[in-house]
């Protein structure tokens, strides 16, 4: 029986809470099972993300990390289990299983993708304006006419987008087509697009893959700022253990679709099962 991660294990929570008061649950994944034909991508996965934390998911290639993220954001529909999301500590929980992806975005969950999935034909600005999509009201008629309310709306949201642009320091890229940007910048634009959504929960799938240390540092700073200054709960998939150790509050480890460990970065790093399946005797 795999070790359960987070509040699902009531006893562990009670124990933990005795020591320090726990932030309330933001995302609760419970018994999620997902298979494709014969492949079990996820097998009875359970974990629990608390408001305001940076939660990392690690695990070998093919362990099901991306599949888990996809299940949360509605792209995959698990055969079993529940995923519940609580936007704010006092808010009513929302079930995410079977919810269409765009409806998941509407409750405040934004994400980035493992292999950059930007709208390549568009400029950076247009990509970010799309991030504002759910906050805008324009319809075919108003957009086609444009004059009046629609123009005001566009300008209002353009201002919001500019905030994100400032924050991520991509001012000089505004009018560039994203397809021609260097890889690292594309990753940053993808983060920007997710932030333009004003999310409460941010899901990042390997945001720092393919970057050198310098660029990872930048990215790390953005992730931390988003988390600390904007108070966005963040779920992070990453293979660079340095990044994971430094940024995350808690870590869950998946292997063959099952969660094999969970805890603070240091606990996880010391876990023999994790070393065996994932880390190897790295150094």
């Amino acid at each position: 029986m795999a070790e359960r991660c987070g509040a699902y294990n009531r006893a562990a929570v009670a124990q933990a809470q005795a020591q320090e008061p726990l932030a309330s649950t933001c995302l609760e994944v419970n018994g999620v099972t997902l298979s494709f034909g014969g492949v079990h991508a996820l097998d009875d996965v359970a974990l629990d993300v608390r408001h305001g934390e940076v939660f990392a998911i690690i695990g070998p290639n093919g362990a099901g990390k991306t599949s888990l993220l996809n299940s949360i954001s509605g792209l995959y529909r698990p055969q079993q289990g529940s995923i519940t999301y609580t936007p704010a500590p006092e808010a009513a929980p929302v079930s995410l299983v079977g919810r269409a992806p765009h409806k998941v975005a509407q409750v405040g969950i934004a994400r980035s993708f493992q292999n950059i999935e930007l709208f390549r034909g568009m400029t950076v600005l247009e990509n970010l304006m799309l991030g504002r999509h759910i906050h805008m009201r324009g319809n075919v008629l108003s957009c086609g006419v444009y004059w009046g309310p629609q123009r005001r709306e566009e300008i209002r949201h353009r201002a919001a987008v500019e905030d994100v642009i400032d924050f991520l320091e991509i001012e000089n890229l505004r009018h560039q087509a994203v397809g021609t940007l260097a890889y690292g910048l594309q990753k940053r634009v993808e983060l920007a697009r997710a932030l333009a959504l004003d999310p409460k929960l941010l899901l990042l799938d390997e945001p720092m893959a393919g970057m050198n240390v310098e660029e990872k540092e930048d990215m790390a700073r953005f992730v931390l700022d988003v988390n600390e200054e904007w108070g966005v709960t963040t779920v992070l998939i990453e293979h660079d253990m340095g990044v994971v150790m430094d940024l995350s509050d808690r870590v869950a480890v998946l292997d063959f679709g099952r969660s094999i460990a969970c805890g603070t970065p240091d606990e996880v790093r010391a876990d023999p099962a994790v070393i065996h399946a994932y880390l190897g005797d790295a150094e």
Partner: protein
Amino acid sequence: MLSLNNVEVIYNDVILVLKGLSLKVEQGQIAALLGTNGAGKSTTLKAISGLLHPEDGEVTDGNVEFEGIQIDKLPAEDIVRRGIFQVMEGRRVFEHLTPQENLLAGAYTARDKGGTDEALERVYGYFPRLKERGNSMAGFLSGGEQQMLAIGRALMARPKLMLLDEPSLGLAPLLVQEIFEIIQRINREEGTTILLVEQNATRALKIAHYGYIMEGGRVVLEGTPAELQDNADVKEFYLGLTQVGQRKSYRDVKHYRRRKRWLS
């Protein structure tokens, strides 16, 4: 074995990416090519392998020589036939082919059938996981498995020179370790010369015989791994070490950064 002399590459007739780049790879060695995003590493590899053409890129100045022959005007298929094989960035497996068919496609230039079977066994020896995935389409493999497949395809061609573009991208630590070991083995056991582009500088320098660091379309620094590791800029920006050789923490949010000088 391979040398690039003052190579200039332009995309779409306007975007100048390589600005007079020169580098050399010696027979039987592993050369590492490091650099920031957008420095032009992938472009360099494509300039060697002839894959610029489909992207509207062109070597406009300088030349690429392989075993004493100028190859920058040759079509990609001729270059492969001469023994240069590039493992492209982003895996690029043939999604609707099985892993085995992907490997056979890699052996396209190898003529004899017996050799193909043998090569297949060798690849399965390196990556037993690929054999296990049997008949499922390669598009459904996980990222790591696809990366193994991409390297496996290169092995099938038995190239003299292998160009590897970020082979460790997106791989779990254990696998990164394994991939680097395999690269080293290929180099040692089969005598394959390797030009390795990597973001994981620590590891790359560990197995390389020589290294180049490029930025903005030029080589800004070169040397043996030991020399490079000694450079302050390399330490800070590529290895993530503090001045005293400690690993920096990503938590140390720093809004000011020392500028790179590339003084050695």
